[in-house]
């Protein structure tokens, strides 16, 4: 069991109804964590359309996690 901080942006923030949370999980990596959260909160984007960031830097899927990590799921970007 690890404790993680998750931040949500854009469509994920709206679908989650909040911008961040601290949670406990048995998920070993960010991909598994996303699937867990998706089932719980009804996120519409499949994991394949997201990128992950761990502790403020992009992390390649499945993006292994350790206790205390800060995780962000990054929906398809649309700047400019």
């Amino acid at each position, binding site marked *: 069991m690890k404790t993680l901080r998750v931040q949500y942006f854009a469509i994920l923030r709206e679908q989650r109804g909040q911008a961040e949370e601290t949670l406990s999980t048995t998920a070993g990596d960010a991909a598994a964590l996303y699937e867990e959260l998706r089932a719980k909160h009804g996120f519409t984007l499949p994991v394949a359309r997201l990128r992950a960031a761990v502790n403020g*830097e992009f992390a390649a899927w499945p993006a292994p996690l350790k206790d205390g990590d800060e995780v962000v799921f990054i*929906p*398809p970007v649309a700047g400019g």
Partner: protein
Amino acid sequence: MSFRIAASPLDPAALKASLADAHAGACVTFEGWVRDHNDGRPVQALDYEAYGALAEKEGARIVAETLAKFPVTRVVCVHRTGSLKIGDLAVWIGVASAHRGAAFDACRYLIDEVKARVPIWKKEHYADGATEWINCATRGEFSDR
């Protein structure tokens, strides 16, 4: 030589002045404006949201790549967040260089990479009251229209 996320309106004249350099003979700027339509749908307003820390990190990498790839003297890029209305300035990019070819190529590279890589999201508000997070639609299972 900078990339910045800004929550308040940009000042293009001041940004351009920061590119001034006696060695530069060419300056190319790109401005992204909020336009009144997208994919044929009337747009009334936009919200931009950024993952600020990572956006500035990735933006700085794009600026560094640009300086490495093109013989340019100065590069500045600033991207807005927050609620914008039609005609507002969403992104400003300016590049100065000795010769014009490099300034055009570098400016184009910057905006293309920023749009593809920097964690910034855009929500469109349509005339009919609907909204949509651009690039985030998923067929069938969910729609915020």
